[in-house]
């Protein structure tokens, strides 16, 4: 026992003792070797990058009942921004640390609504994502941090993801704000992964119209020889359980086929319901207690042509989305609320409440049937990336065209253009907020 204690004391004091014994060359060499090895490990495990972005945006606001005279959303017409985006990572033995601190300077100009003629400077310093992960055993990892957790093969949106609505693909230059997650990942076999995920804080995500609720998920992933599949069982506090799935198949060298979906009993989405209030209706969770299954299914495929481009098609059936009758009632209610927006309280208060509910009725897509077509090609002559995406709402015939163009001027500099044109009247899904918008900028990677 005494020997053990002495050994532990020696072990704890070893670095100090060994430093003090300057004459002991063996010890000195061992310490030197250890510190060199440590330095090498740290320098090998350290990774960093720094990106600098500056860009300007222009947004033409749509004339719609959702945003009367732009006084509800108060969207700026022009903006210019300067972003500094360092990414830091240290992988040291069983520990993995990463951080993405951000600096954002933004200047906005308003030309519509109550803020017409207004300008505003804003600076924002924050950490959009950070992570501390430890490898407990060879196959078990535990992490906590602010993350942007994305998965699934689809381009349009990821119905199987219970945490994030935005998958970041409509504007890759705008980073999706991270939320706080605890994760336990277990790899029982090469082909299988089991994850427990707890979304414990909203982090940098904003929930302007509702309270944030913690969400827990159990995710099972399988990866086969030419296919993969995942099942995600999630539960949101004060809401219900959801089952999400996604999978894909490399059908040939050029053809990918995939699907994604979610299903739940009932829905917490808001639907217009006739009432005796001044607008004749309110937005209510009418399917909250419903026990019938409601689901969203996305089916897609992509084909890469011999000459380079990849063509993608996706179809979405959104079960909880509005039928024609529900959509008519929704737009009627929205118009009533819009008309009352400038009246005195309490009508104005009711108008604002109603418009906040119609702005986010807890549906990722408003209607039931959508189709998306995409053309994508990377590294054309090593200088150009192109993405053109058309999303069509089959039910109300509105649509959205997005183009993402990256041009590389040298090894460090990228000039980018992201443009969007929405078609449809103010009483359609894609015609509700913006008519068109564009973003032009330069990204420099050090």
């Amino acid at each position, binding site marked *: 026992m005494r020997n053990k204690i002495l050994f532990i004391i020696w072990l704890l004091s070893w670095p100090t003792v060994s430093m003090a014994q300057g004459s002991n060359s063996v010890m000195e060499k061992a310490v030197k070797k250890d510190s060199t090895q440590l330095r090498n490990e740290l320098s090998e495990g350290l990774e960093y990058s720094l990106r600098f972005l500056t860009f300007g945006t222009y947004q033409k606001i749509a004339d719609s009942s959702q945003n009367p005279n732009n006084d509800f959303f108060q969207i700026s017409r022009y903006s210019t921004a300067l972003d500094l985006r360092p990414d830091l990572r240290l992988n040291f033995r069983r520990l993995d640390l990463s951080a993405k601190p951000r600096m954002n300077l933004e200047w906005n100009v308003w030309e519509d609504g109550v803020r017409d003629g207004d300008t505003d400077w804003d600076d924002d310093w924050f950490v959009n994502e950070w992570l501390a992960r430890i490898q407990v055993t060879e196959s078990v990892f535990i992490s906590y941090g602010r993350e942007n957790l994305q998965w699934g093969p689809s381009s349009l949106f990821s119905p199987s993801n219970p945490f994030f609505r935005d998958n970041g693909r409509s504007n890759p230059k705008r980073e999706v704000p991270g939320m706080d997650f605890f994760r336990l990942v277990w*790899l029982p076999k090469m082909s299988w992964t089991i994850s427990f995920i707890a979304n414990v804080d909203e982090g940098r995500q904003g929930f302007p119209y509702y309270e944030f609720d913690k969400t827990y998920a159990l995710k099972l992933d399988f990866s086969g020889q030419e296919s993969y599949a995942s099942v995600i069982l999630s539960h949101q506090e004060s809401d219900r359980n959801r089952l999400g799935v996604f999978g894909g198949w490399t059908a040939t060298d050029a053809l990918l086929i995939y699907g994604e979906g979610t299903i739940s009993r009932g829905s917490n989405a808001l639907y217009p319901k006739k009432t005796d209030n001044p607008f004749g209706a309110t937005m209510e969770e009418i399917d909250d207690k419903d026990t019938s299954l409601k689901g969203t299914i996305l089916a897609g495929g992509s084909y890469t042509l011999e000459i380079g481009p990849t063509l993608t098609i996706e179809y979405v059936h959104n079960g909880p989305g509005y039928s024609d009758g529900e959509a008519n009632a929704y737009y009627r209610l929205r118009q009533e609320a819009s008309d009352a927006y400038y009246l005195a309280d309490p009508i104005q208060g009711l108008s604002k409440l109603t418009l906040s509910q119609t702005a986010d009725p807890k549906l990722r897509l408003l209607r039931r049937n959508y189709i998306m077509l995409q053309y994508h090609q990377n590294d054309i002559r090593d200088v150009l990336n192109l993405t053109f995406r058309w999303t069509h709402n089959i039910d109300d015939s509105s649509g959205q065209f997005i183009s993402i163009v990256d041009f590389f001027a040298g090894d460090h500099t990228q000039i980018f253009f992201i443009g969007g044109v929405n078609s449809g009247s103010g009483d359609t899904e894609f015609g509700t907020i913006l008519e068109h918008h564009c973003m032009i900028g330069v990204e420099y990677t050090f």
Partner: protein
Amino acid sequence: MNFKFQVPPAPPSVGTGAVWRAGSSFKFPVLCVILFSVILFHIKPVLAEMTPKEVLSKADEARGNVEGVEWEIKIESVENDRTQKRTLRIKARDFNSLAEFLSPPKVKGRKLLMIDRNMWFIKPGLKKPVPISPRQKLMGGASNGDIASTNYAGDYDATLVSEDTVNGEPCLLFNLVAHTKKVTYDRIRYWISRDRLIGVKAEFFTVSGKMFKSATFEYENSILIHGKPKPFVSKMVITDAVVKGNITTMRYGKVKIKKIPDSTFNLNLLVR
């Protein structure tokens, strides 16, 4: 297709290394003959007993199909007089690989994950991994499949066509026909060195039978497999069959045989 192929005749140059000199004893040439016979009788039956699939497996080993390997590839592509360069770090095990783009800065941080036939592309700033097809080109004449370890033995049915020489080296010429539609190339003519059992030249064909590119391989690197040094690919030069000036050169360096854990190929842990 599991037949044994005929033992090809020994190359004429073999055995002529020992020169009898006037005045010297007969011991040296005799020893050489004995040594040659030992080598011949030792090697020939081994090669003779190997099926085309086994020969391909050996050749695959020298192109990364081993338990775990990490290497860096410098790709230089000349296409229509434009030169492009990339440096990638590859971690590979069995039929899985992770390619991390190291330079130039404009592509730094990109990752390409291949788990068997499933491939994902990850761009810095875009957290959602994008599934991509094997056909999507990496750069110049190099397909995604070219940077990964080769599994011709598993993906193709091989037939020994004939013997040939490549740069004077005796080779076995195999005709490889894909038995799955999931591979990058439908048919390959593959020259494997008789003595070294490594692929030294390949021609790649489309379904219509048209050759669209060819490649040559060099093996200056060496790795230890079961404690024994084995040659490992050091250079692959891909030449476009239509535009001869379009050439992609891939140089393989910093080869390390190491245990690559499952977590390296796990999407849940990869995206940070």
